[in-house]
């Protein structure tokens, strides 16, 4: 008996390899948007590596945190590279998350039987938000300090136990070294492990029901004599090699950003990150990073504290029920022009809200912010009605694909 036979008899890996790679049949008509998923996996691995290496030099105390981050930038060999990889990686992850989610919404990937895949994926997005927020606090710059103060203040709006929760989160009356300690612990252990676990389940649940495709038709409904979908191709080698090509292109973009525009015009790394925390000096305007600012714009849109927070929470939670708001038998918006137009308005509106959330809190932005909030909520409210009555074109019997 060869060593290979001996090993294979005892190992679950060959079976897993077949189930998830070599004999996982994915539709053959994936387009460019389908790179986002594998690129997200790559980025999480890179964040783990760069994060581990900056953590090796980071000191989570109120006195030393800021200087230790500067030490990473100037004193650690290639510390600037690890630091910029980690900082710019966050923004790139959110770009990919938004592409990945927009893809799912355009082609109806959240629809039956993939509701749980959508819910796990959206939960992962929320976990990424928490991970990004905790990471944001760690350099203990003045922006970290005030962003931490503002965000932890949100918990005060919880009825009855708000103040207790706020104190628990902060580890004291206000932001301090104790807050830094627990946020460091959350950032590197609990939240990170939750993200990894959710990604594993996201993929397992996807592979149980199979991948959707731009045409939104089930390839499993049309199987060939070999028992495999006629419009499916094994993930390995076809998509693994395709994704490898995507890795190359993406890493080139990533490297270009790190080397030539690491702050990305102060969008990926704000100017106010470069002054140490000062409890006596609030920032001129506290704006969140671009990937969270759409929700922040909605928070500001309502001139009532609790009303704004409720709107923001509703806006964040609405996508969870998306699978049940869509009533149309056709999944892909390729064959549903009205929904497609609604979605495109929704996406543009989301980025307009992101822009507005970055602006100083001036009265001239109040109207566009409110309009943006109305459009955001209107999409979810109108979807059940529109999807029920909209005219649709008939999807093709087999996926549209041109061999190349």
């Amino acid at each position: 008996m060869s060593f290979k036979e001996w090993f294979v008899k005892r190992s679950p890996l060959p079976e897993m390899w077949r189930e998830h790679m070599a004999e996982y049949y994915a539709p053959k008509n994936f387009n460019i948007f389908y790179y986002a998923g594998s690129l997200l996996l790559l980025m999480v691995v890179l964040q783990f590596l760069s994060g581990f290496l900056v953590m090796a030099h980071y000191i989570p105390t109120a006195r030393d945190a800021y200087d230790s981050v500067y030490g990473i930038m100037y004193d650690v060999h290639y510390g600037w590279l690890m630091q910029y990889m980690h900082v710019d990686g966050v923004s790139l992850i959110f770009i990919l998350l938004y592409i990945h989610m927009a893809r799912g919404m355009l082609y109806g990937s959240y629809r039956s039987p993939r509701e749980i895949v959508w819910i796990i994926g959206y939960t992962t997005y929320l976990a990424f938000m928490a991970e990004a927020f905790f990471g944001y606090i760690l350099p203990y710059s003045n922006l970290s300090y005030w962003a931490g103060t503002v965000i932890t203040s949100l918990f005060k709006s919880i009825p009855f136990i708000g103040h207790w929760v706020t104190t628990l989160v902060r580890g004291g009356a206000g932001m301090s070294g104790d807050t830094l300690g627990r946020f460091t612990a959350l950032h590197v252990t609990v939240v990170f492990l939750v993200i990894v676990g959710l990604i594993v389940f996201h993929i397992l649940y996807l592979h149980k029901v199979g991948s959707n495709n731009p045409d939104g038709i089930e390839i499993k409904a049309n199987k060939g004599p070999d028992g495999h979908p006629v419009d499916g191709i094994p993930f390995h080698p076809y998509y693994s090699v395709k994704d490898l090509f995507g890795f190359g292109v993406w890493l080139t973009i990533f490297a270009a950003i790190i080397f030539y525009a690491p702050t990305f015009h102060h969008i990926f790394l704000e100017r106010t990150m470069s002054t140490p925390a000062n409890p006596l000096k609030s920032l001129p305007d506290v704006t969140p990073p671009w990937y969270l600012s759409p929700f922040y714009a909605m928070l500001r849109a309502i001139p009532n504290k609790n009303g704004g927070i409720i709107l923001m929470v509703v806006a964040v939670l609405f996508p969870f029920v998306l699978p049940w708001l869509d009533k149309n038998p056709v999944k892909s918006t390729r064959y549903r022009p009205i929904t497609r137009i609604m979605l495109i308005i929704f996406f543009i509106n989301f980025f307009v809200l992101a822009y507005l959330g970055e602006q100083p809190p001036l009265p001239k932005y109040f109207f566009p912010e409110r309009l943006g909030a109305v459009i955001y909520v209107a999409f979810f409210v109108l979807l059940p009605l529109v999807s029920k009555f909209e005219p649709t074109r008939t999807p093709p019997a087999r996926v549209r694909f041109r061999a190349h």
Partner: protein
Amino acid sequence: MSDETQDNKHAPNVTRRRFLTALVTVSGAAVAGTIVVPMVKSLDPTAAAAALATTTIDLNPIEPGMQMVALWQEKPVIVVNRTPEMLATLDETAQKGLLKDPNCNVPQQPPYCKNKYRSRVPEWYVGIKICNHLCCIPHYRPKKASVAPWWLGGFHCPCHGSMYDLSARVIKGSPAPHNMAVPEYDIDVEKKSVVVTKMYPLAHLC
């Protein structure tokens, strides 16, 4: 487009594919290498740690027969101001055959300290006070018969009983294999100062 053209399979060009696979593998390894090197290098001692590389010790407060310990790169450096009587014991230990390496043939010190004093200037012993056995810190025992009846003065390790003379040469019967290490240093006798510059690369600390 008909289903036949969709499912039409072309025979693959095997040579071309092998070449492309090799090309991708090699360039992929090159890309991985370019990031692995900075990643490993980032765990090197930082510039801040490297800036702490040298230590200057003021000899003025050390009276004859006295010693002082300074911290250099997280290691204790001992400076002993040896009296003529103490220097005389160095010949005695060697003559009695007590030492494992009386002539300092093992390069535990820079070449300019390869003498019975194991120092640049006979009176001033400068060395790292770490036992060659298992990295403990030996005690300084200058008094005669303070460790054993035959004791002429030297260093005695509390962990496993290694013994050294006043030049930190290891005494026979000790578990330590070599003399204690001497770092590279400069001494200015007039200004009474010692600058410990770097570890002597051949020396085996413990």
